[in-house]
Structures are given as C-alpha cells and as structure tokens.
C-alpha cells in the first residue's frame, strides 16, 4: 500500500502539467498485462474465490508491478524512503526475497506431498504383507 502511495506521488512529481505519458514499448505491453491481472485478482477477492490474505497479496503485488513499470522513478522514491541507494537495488532485493519465499513454499509443499505419497504406499504395502514358507529353506 505504501509503495502504491509513493508511486502515485512520484507520478505526480514526474509528469509535467498537460503532457501525455511517454511509455516505451515494454511499458506499453507490460503495464496493461499487470493491470489486467491486478483487476482479475480484485474480482477474485470480491467473489471470495481465494483466501483473503492471498487475494490482498496478489492485488498488491500486481498493482505495484504495474505502477513500478509505468513510473520507474517511483522505485527510486521508495528505495530512498527505505534507505536503499538505487531503485534497481530495491527491485533486486525484493526479487531475491520473493524467490526465497517461493522456493521455501514449494520445497515444503513437495516434502508434504512426498510424505503423503509414502504414507499411502506404506499403507498399501503393509496390507499386502505375506509370510514366507516355513518348510526347509536351506539349499
């Protein structure tokens, strides 16, 4: 939320009065995509199709992405507010943290699935336990 407010502030700071926004090709492609995904996340949140926390997080992340791409100067504003030298450094640190969080999440999910699969295989295996022949087995 703070990022969004600061992005709006930088937008007002950047745009000269009356001048149209000057977006490059990447911005023209990426901003609408991020905005659409953010809108979709809002709709899913309103319709309660996702847990509330997940929904809010998705809306914030995609909105922040759209604003950061549309107004790159906003990353500098936020970085300075956070005591980081450059906007690019801020984006890199956030991407690194996000990567670690996502890796940790998926590792834990994989481990849970591994444990569930093993328990399932174990139950089936034990149900089929057999005892071998009790007669003379040497030879």
């Amino acid at each position, binding site marked *: 939320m703070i990022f969004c407010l600061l992005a709006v502030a930088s937008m007002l700071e950047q745009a000269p009065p009356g001048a149209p926004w000057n977006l490059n090709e990447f911005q023209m492609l990426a901003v609408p995509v991020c905005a659409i995904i953010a809108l979709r996340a809002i709709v899913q949140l309103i319709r309660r199709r996702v847990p509330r926390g997940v929904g809010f997080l998705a809306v914030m992340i995609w909105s922040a992405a759209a604003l950061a791409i549309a107004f790159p100067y906003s990353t500098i504003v936020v970085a300075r507010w956070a005591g980081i030298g450059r906007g690019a450094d801020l984006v890199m640190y956030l991407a690194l943290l996000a990567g670690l969080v996502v890796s940790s999440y998926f590792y834990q999910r994989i481990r849970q699935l591994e444990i569930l699969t093993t328990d399932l295989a174990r139950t089936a*295996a034990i149900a*089929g*336990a*057999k*005892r071998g022949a009790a007669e003379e*087995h040497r030879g």
Partner: protein
Amino acid sequence: MQDSSMNRATRSLPEDLWIVIAAYNEEKRVGRVLDELLGTVCNVVVVDDGSRDETAAVVLRRPAWLIRHGINLGQGASLQTGISFALQKGARYVVTFDADGQHTPSDIPALVDALESTGSHFALGSRFLGHAEGIPLTRKIILRMAVLFTRLLSGVRLTDAHNGLRAMSREGAQSLRITMNRMEHASEIIDQIARSGLKYVEVPVHIRYTADSLAKGQRTSAAIRLGLKLLVERTIR
C-alpha cells in the same frame, strides 16, 4: 553361518524381538542374511523396496515376512514401513539390519543387552567402537565427517552416525517417524532421538565390507549431496 556366540544368543533373544531389513535388488545376498538370522530370531520382516530382481521370491522361500513397496521409495521409507509393521505385530524390541551382509547377527544380543541393562530406548551400533573389516580409507573419512556434521546439526555426540545396525525399545520405535526416504534418514533418526529426550547408548559392532557392499554403497558425491539436503531441510522446515 552360525558361531558359538550366536548359539549363546539363542537362549537370550526375546521372542518379541523383530528384525527389520530394507532390501532393494538384493537377490544375491538377502538369502544368506536371512539364513544367518532365522536360525535364532523368530520375527524378521523384509521390506522389498520396489526391487526389479528376485529379492521377493528369495525372501518368500524362507519363514520371514515380506512387505513390498509398489515403487522404490528409499531405505528410510522402507525402514519406517518395517518398524510400523513390527509395532503392529506387538514388537517389544526392533532391530534394523542391512540386507547386504555387512552386519553380523552375533551383534544383536549385545544391542538388546545394552537396552535392558542401561534402561536406554536406543542402542546404536558403532563400527569405530567395534571393528570395521575392510573399510576403505575414503569411507572412513566420510563417516568421520558425518559424525562431525551430526554433532553440529543435532548436538548429538556419537562415534558412528551412519550405522544401520540399531536396536530400539517399543517406546523408542514409537517415538520415531522417519520422513526422509533416502539415505538422509540416518541423520533424521539421530535428530529425532535427540529431540525425543529418550536415552540412547552406543554399542561396539562388527561391520564387514566386501567388494559387493562397497560397490553398492554411498559415493563421495552422494555423501556431499546428502549433507546439502540435510542443511536445506534444517533451514527451510
């Protein structure tokens, strides 16, 4: 192969002692291991971990229990399956034993005696307190490093952290829940023993290394991967 120490063991091994063996593609060796064990122990369960050879058929020609995993899950998973089965059958003691002939059945009485005489719930075999016949130098170094690694990770001081020959009481076996399916299970067991607060003791055992067992054993690169996996598990979970 039965020696006089095993004959002495015949009189002392409890009837509710269960041996758990995890086996994967051991058709050539598991038969001999079972022949050595079944002369003196009533209850042996072999967990065939998705073998692609005749391991299951070899086991079923002997009066041992066979449990088959539908897919290869790993030694850790197989041991937990065997332990769970033994507990269901009312085991008072559970001993884990390798299928490749590295372990000596005559060590089993000493493990059980250690449990009973010290009131411990885990008796962990140590080749460095006992004897490791034919152990290569590189294997010795890796095992010593594993001891140090275990000490750093779990705070447990052992002389042999990766020995598959271990005995546990019913309470000890019930306290374990092996979730690491592959070779990391050995460190997980030590970790869980430490966290359980249950008493454990190390017992000298005799390990036999043969060309076969060395060929099938852990490579150095696998040991390094194991260590990294344990670190990741500790950090993330």
